[in-house]
Every structure is written in C-alpha cells, then in structure tokens.
C-alpha cells in the first residue's frame, strides 16, 4: 500500500495554517493562557490519523489541535473554543489543553503522561464494545518518564490492547533536554514491555504512514500494542512566548551579555558553589540557548516543507491545493471572530 501523499499534504498544510492562525490570535491577545502549538508534528499526526476510522479513539496531550483537525473535528468549533465562545467545541469551558470531541472519541489533557491511561481505557472499551477498533496515544518524549505512562505501556502489553503509542520526540521538555533526564533509550524501554517499537523520522510522513499502518492493523487484529517513536523538531519552542526561545532569538551579543550578567551576579556572591561548578552552570545555560538557536535555524527539518518540495513537481495541483486550504483557513478565521 502507498499513501495518498496529496491527501496527507493537505491535512498537514491545514494543520500548519491553522496553528499559524492560532498563533496570530494568541499574539493579538484574543486567546488566553498557555499555547502549545503542534507546528513540526504535522507528519506524525497525519501519518497516524489517516489510518483511523469511525469508532477509533484518540488520547491527546497539550498539543492536540493537529490530530483533532485531521480526525475531522470542525476547525471552526476548535477556534471558537480557543477564543472562549459558548459555541466553541467545549462551550469555552475546556480551552486548548482540554479539547474533547465525544463524536470522535477524542480527549485531551494538560497533565503530562495522562494520554497513556486515557488510551488504555479507550482500548479496553474498544476490546469490549467495538472489536476491530483501536486507540491511539500521542505524547512527547518527556512524558515517557511519567509513571502512569510506563504503567500504561505495561498494562497495554499485558492485556494485548488495541493501542498505538505515538511518542513525538522533539528532544525537549520545556527547557530541559530530555536526553539528560531520560536513562537508557525509549525504544528499548518500549520493547522491554514486549511491544514492537519502531524508530522513525517524524518529518517523513510516508515513513510514519507505513509504520502506523502496520501497527494499527496489528492492533485491529488482536496482536496488541505497538510503540512508534518519531523524531521531530518544534521551531516555535515549547509554547508561544517561550522564554528560552526569546532569549535565544536575541542577537548573540545581547543574549550572552544577559547570561554573563547572571553569571557575574552569581560569581559576586560569597558562599555558593566553587567557581568551577558555577562556570559549569553558566555553560549549561549557554549551551541550551545554542541548541535552541540550532533548532530554529533554516536547515532544521520541516515536514510540511519537505513534502511540499517533493510534490512541487506538480506545480499546478500544488497551487490549487494551497489555494483551497488557504481559503478554508481564512474563511474559518473570519467566522471565528464573529462575536457570539
């Protein structure tokens, strides 16, 4: 089987444009609170979601919009939810970390790791009430250190639940490089529960589509859960207004000045760690900022751009599709702003 790349591209582009619209509205102060975008995760979401059918369930984390959009939830009702209107997806009660669509059996949570248990419960219901359907958990690599996520891997494997764990590894949990807090590697961790685990480039939608297709088919056939481990990068940082990103975006000199000022302040204070340890701390922070800058650089992989490039040979079709999606999102944006 081959994926319909145009269809996937369309979903990815919709998601990207939607998130960019959200960003603008958030920046304009029309959306409140934290805002974690799914920019950079489009290929993972599209490659997985495109295999889902009626009755399948979705357990989402704090970056739930792309999967929901691709699953077919009305974009306007999501946007109106984010804007806090009574006719939003959740009546303005949930907000962006708590998007729920009963019709799609899709639930989000802002608690890191909670998509594990949620997916397990959905999978139990699938087993019991809707044989042949599956449940999918989306989460970050940081969430893989949350106890309930590991418990859920064990439970899913022990009960051979129809479940797909989708771990999106952008290397960061907020300002922490996840590698430094994660012992061993997540592929081995998943396999240690007796689950198949596949590592892939989350910017390559075809690879995701293939792996997810196989894993979901296995789950439907009663072969139990699988673990997809997909690398991605997230140019917008952890959330909009990301502190680390703000720092890193300043011209090098300014930013270093700031770090130096902290450092000097800290060095000037009597008592505290030996100078070497203080210098190590300063280097750690400088290295973080360098890493952030790297992930923001022009050469950072972008799943949408990548697919765009490979499909661009058909220029006309691409232009039409782009026009269509841009039109849709513009239309949604316009309707979204109409007062309740």
């Amino acid at each position: 089987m081959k994926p319909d790349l145009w269809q996937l591209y369309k979903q990815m582009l919709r998601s990207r444009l939607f998130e960019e619209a959200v960003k603008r509205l958030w920046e304009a102060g029309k959306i409140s609170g934290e805002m974690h975008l799914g920019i950079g995760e489009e290929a993972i979401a599209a490659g997985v979601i495109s295999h889902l059918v009626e009755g399948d369930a979705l357990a989402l984390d704090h970056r739930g919009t792309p999967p929901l959009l691709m699953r077919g939830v009305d974009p306007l009702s999501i946007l109106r939810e984010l804007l806090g209107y009574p006719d939003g997806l959740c009546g303005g009660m949930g907000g962006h970390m708590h998007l729920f669509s009963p019709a799609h059996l899709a639930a989000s949570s802002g608690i890191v790791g909670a998509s594990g248990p949620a997916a397990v419960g959905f999978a139990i219901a699938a087993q019991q009430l809707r044989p042949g359907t599956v449940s999918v958990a989306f989460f970050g690599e940081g969430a893989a250190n949350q106890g309930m996520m590991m418990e859920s891997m064990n439970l899913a494997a022990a009960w051979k639940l129809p479940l797909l764990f989708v771990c999106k590894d952008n290397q960061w949990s907020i300002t922490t490089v996840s590698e430094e807090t994660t012992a061993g590697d997540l592929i081995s961790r998943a396999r240690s529960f007796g689950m198949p685990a596949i590592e892939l480039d989350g910017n390559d939608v075809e690879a995701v589509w293939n792996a997810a297709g196989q894993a979901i088919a296995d789950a439907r056939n009663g072969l139990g859960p699988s673990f997809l481990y997909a690398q991605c990068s997230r140019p917008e940082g952890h959330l909009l207004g990301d502190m680390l990103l703000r720092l890193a975006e300043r011209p090098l000199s300014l930013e270093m000045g700031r770090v130096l000022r902290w450092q000097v302040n800290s060095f000037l204070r009597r008592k505290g760690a030996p100078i070497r340890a203080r210098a190590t701390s300063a280097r750690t922070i400088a290295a973080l900022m360098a890493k952030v800058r790297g992930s923001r650089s022009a050469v950072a992989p972008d799943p949408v751009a990548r697919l765009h490039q490979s499909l661009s040979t058909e220029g006309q079709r691409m232009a039409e599709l782009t026009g269509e999606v841009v039109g849709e999102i513009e239309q949604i944006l316009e309707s979204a702003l109409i007062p309740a």
Partner: protein
Amino acid sequence: MKILSFAQAIEDAVNQAMADDPTVIIFGEDIHMIRRNLFLRFGGDRVRSTPISEASFVGAAVSASMAGLRPIVEVMLVDFIGVAMDALLNHAAKVETFSGGKWKAPLVVRAACGGGYGDGGQHQQTLWGWLAHIPGLSVVVPSTPADAGGLMLAAIEHDGPVIFLEHKMLADYWLDFMGAGNRKTVQFDVPPAGASGPVPATWQPTPLGKAAIRRQGDDLTIISIGVGVHRALEAADALAQQGVYASVIDLRTVAPLDKATICEMSAATGSVLVVDEDYEQFGLSGELAAVILEAGIPIKYRRVCTQETIPYARHLEDQILPNKQRIIDAALELSIG
C-alpha cells in the same frame, strides 16, 4: 425479607447491575479472587485483575467510562488512591465541565476504608471529606446492607464519577483479610446492624444526596456517616439513659450533601455534634458547620473526628478514632455548656 451481610448486599447489587447491563465491568488488583463470584459468572473479560498500577488503571477507568463502559474500578483501600489521585482530581472530576457538558464519565471507584483493627495509618484512613472537596466527584459511604446495595446501584447508574467506600468494620471479608486473618484470637467492634440486615429482593437505586434519619431526639442532632452512625446510635442510647435525647442523621453520601435534612434537623435541636472518622481539619465536619451557618441557623457545635495520623497500636488507635465515649462526652458538653 432477605437478610444479607453488608458485603453480600453490595455483591448482590453488582450482580444485578452486571446482569442487566453488559457495559458494567470491573477491574482492579486481585479481582479474580476478591470478586470471585462475579469472575466466575461474568468471566475474565468483564472482571479483570490488573497489575499494581493504580495511576494507569484508574485513569483508564475514566476514559473507558467515556467510551461507553460503566467501569467499577477497585483500588483495594482508599489509602492507595494517592498514587492514582491525578485520575480523580484532574480527569474524572473535570471531564464533564471541560467538555462543556457534552461528555460524562460514569465510573465507580470502589475502595475499602476505615480503621479499628490495628493496621496503622497508611491502611485505615477514610478520606471521604478529602475526596469530596473536588467538585465533580460524588462520594458515597453506606452504613447498612440495604444502603450498601442501593447506593452501589445508584453509583453504577449515575452519569458521573462516584467514589464508593465500604468500611472495613462493616464489610466482613475485608476485616477478615486485613484484621482477623482467620484468627479467633482477635476481637473487633463490629456494629451488628451494619454488618448484616434486611435487603430488598430486587435492588432499586438509593438516591445520592439523601440522608437518612436514624433516630429522633429533641436535645441534639448527631450527624455522622459510615461506622460513625452506629457509634452515634450506641452513644445516643446511653445518653437517653441520662436524659439527653439525640437525633442521629446518617448522611449516606458526603457529596452531594443533603443540606435540607441537615439544616432542618439542626434547627430543630439547635445543637449539632458531628461524628466523622475522617480527619477533622478542612473536611466534612467543617463543611457541615458552614452549611448550617449559611442557612442562618444558630447552633452550638462540637465534633468528634480523627485528628491525627492513626496510630498502629490498638489501644492508641481506639483513642483517636471516634468512639462511643468521646461521643457521649461531647454530647454532654453540648447539652450542658
């Protein structure tokens, strides 16, 4: 008239619910043995033993309930809910609000609770007032077999999360498992009217949020729940011999709270004594004071609760848990003072 033990009554009601509704399923640790009769009748798909992973399987119960099942998830003792608290605090209790009322989580969290058999402070808590603090959770604590079955049925049928707590002094199998262990050499203060009693032939749900008046008296109103109700009734008998007549209210559900009955009965005597095995501070006993004051009812007020971490030694534990003597003393203080 059918007579069942407290434990049998619950099992009977669960049997009825599971037979009538195939979406009712049970999971928890050791369920194949603890609920062996249900396991034998309804099979391993609907009666599932879990790993010791409460955070995950209580969380799973929430989403399973959202996806069409009506899970009864068991965490053995309510004390163990600590490891699974996120599932209740941030998920079960909030699904309905977050979804704008469009999605419900009809699950029952079942657990044993309570002390009086010398098992120490990590295994004898009640925590009902604590759980009730979280908007969105119902908390049910029956004191008789008839209520136990009826409230269990109501909990299963309720379209939201319900915590169902069975006190170990009433549920004989728990007391045997954790306290007696088949010994004849130990005694427990088991209230007979709670441990066994008449039940209906077919279960009807006992409505959540409806207190029961267990005794009428003009001098003071004792408000309690669970085993405390029986302790209060014993104390009321003793008080009556001293000429002090107490009403006894059995709340039956902590949340929702039957404010009407509480206020009416409190106004009638003007003296309220709360007997609450849960921790005293920031819990049920305080809420009752607030509810009565909010209604503008002037009362004298005392409470007999558990003030500290429960000690292990039985003689120490006996002093800390609400007992008949403490209740009598507080009641006399109220009626004299």
